[in-house]
């Protein structure tokens, strides 16, 4: 529209390209190159504590494709949150290579390539829902009109348009998490990092949120790195489940979910036998073949 070219054909093909872009982005963003959303190679993380060194991650290698949904699952202390924090540049690896969209994690963070959501929603209690969702835009000095439009769009997406003027503590836990997810999506990131975002919710709310998350991911085409210790949750959401084991934290196995494409999944899947097969596969991997529980929730 900005280019008043007399050549009708070229502007038409331009419109067509714009139309198909979201689809293309899912497969290969960043100008056609196949840059992985996350590329970790032999990453180690050692924390120095007063009682000696703690080996949180050992020789972790993992690639997350653009648009892919990957869950990290494992018992407490397996380093799944640590790995997510490294990707988010909240900590840095002790050794090994880690890149996010082909850049250093620091660069990716500064470019706002990812959005993040924590177990506690982490909303600012003195700001309304709309102001919480708009927080990153406001901090990055987006024009007010643009911010308002984007916030309305995001609230629509998470189904909270009627609550824009409410304060976080007036909302239920599930609604607070939806606000946090909307906020994480504010800068249109190419990846979402989620650290047990539904861990504090009741089972029914949790299942509803999972289905909504899949819908939102299909709409935005963002890659997701999802930390959880619920096997069904990991299976239901993911394209691949990364099973981790503790002391030192390392990847035990990466399991492909042989299920429908994650954008096509619905609650019906929860009663499908393929779903139970995948749950069994993940459980057996977690328990290392034995049936002894190692502190992983099986719900």
């Amino acid at each position, binding site marked *: 529209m900005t280019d008043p070219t007399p050549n009708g054909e070229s502007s038409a093909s331009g419109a067509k390209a714009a139309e198909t872009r979201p689809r293309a982005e899912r497969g290969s963003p960043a100008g056609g190159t196949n840059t992985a959303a996350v590329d970790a190679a032999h990453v180690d993380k050692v924390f120095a504590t007063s009682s000696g060194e703690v080996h949180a991650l050992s020789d972790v290698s993992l690639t997350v494709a653009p648009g892919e949904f990957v869950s990290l699952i494992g018992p407490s202390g397996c380093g799944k949150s640590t790995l997510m924090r490294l990707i988010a*540049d*909240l900590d840095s690896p002790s050794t090994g290579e880690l890149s996010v969209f082909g850049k250093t994690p620091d660069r990716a*963070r500064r470019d706002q390539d990812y959005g993040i959501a924590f177990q506690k929603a982490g909303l600012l209690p003195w700001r309304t829902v709309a102001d919480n969702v708009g927080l990153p835009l406001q901090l990055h000095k987006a024009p007010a009109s643009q911010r308002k439009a984007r916030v309305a769009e995001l609230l629509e997406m998470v189904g909270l348009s009627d609550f824009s003027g409410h*304060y976080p503590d007036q909302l239920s836990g599930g609604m607070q998490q939806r606000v946090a997810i909307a906020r994480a999506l504010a800068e249109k990131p190419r990846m979402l990092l989620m650290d047990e975002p539904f861990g504090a919710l009741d089972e029914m709310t949790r299942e509803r949120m999972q289905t909504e998350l899949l819908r939102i991911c299909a709409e935005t085409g963002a890659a997701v790195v999802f930390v959880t210790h619920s096997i069904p949750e990991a299976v239901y959401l993911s394209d691949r489940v990364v099973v981790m084991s503790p002391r030192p934290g390392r990847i035990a196995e990466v399991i492909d979910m042989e299920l429908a494409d994650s954008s096509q999944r619905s609650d019906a899947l929860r009663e499908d036998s393929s779903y139970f097969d995948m749950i069994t596969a993940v459980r057996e991997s977690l328990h290392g073949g034995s049936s002894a529980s190692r502190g992983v929730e099986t719900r």
Partner: protein
Amino acid sequence: MSAETLSPRQRTIGRVGAPVLVGVLGLLLWQLMVGVFGVSSYLLPAPTAIFAEANRASAHIWNGALITGWNALAGLIVGTLLGVVFAACAAASKSVNAMVNPLVAALAVIPIVALAPILNTMFGSTQFPRQAIAGLASFVPVFVSTLRGLRQVDPELRDLMHTYAVSPVQTFFTVTLPTAVPYVFTGVRLASSLAVISALVAEYFGGPRGGLGGIISTAAASSQYPRAWAYVLASIAVGLVFYLTTMLLEWLANRSRSTASG
């Protein structure tokens, strides 16, 4: 008659009525002691005499209350601003914290009676020494309370701000300071009474006349006890105004938070 059998309305009446009743009874007893039992009016003037004096000199008392009140207010405002700024620096940097903490401990133990004569001599016949002393007295509780508040920030919010790649200044104004606001106002409430007391006491040690404290000391020195008591009464009123105002501010600061929390 247990508390559960009372309606909320009755309980409110009790809460307001009880102290008023005690006050009236106290005044009656005081009046009786002076009038009936013959306690010398030189030692203890009757309440009626004090009220009569307060009524007679009301213009002077009002004037004195304005002078002392202004000194306390100026000190409270400057002390609060300095307290918040120093606390912000101490919260931001461990080395600043290590430098400032002993200083604050020293300030906290400075007796007003020791400092007032020195400042009066240094700055002569201005109101500055009183304001400075009120400021020093206000600084300490605001600093301590604010610093505590600044350290209450949710680590998750800190992480979140880090992921937004914003400046430390933006983080401070977006997350750290709003978290600390209720603590700041608690500090201000504690400081308000100290500011009034300090401004009053500082007047005992010379400098320009006219404030409540100065007149109390002169009246007491010349045995005009009803007059001294009338000014004491005015001092209590000034102190209460400060305390209630800052309490209201604290309530407002917390209320914006509790509309936030439903």
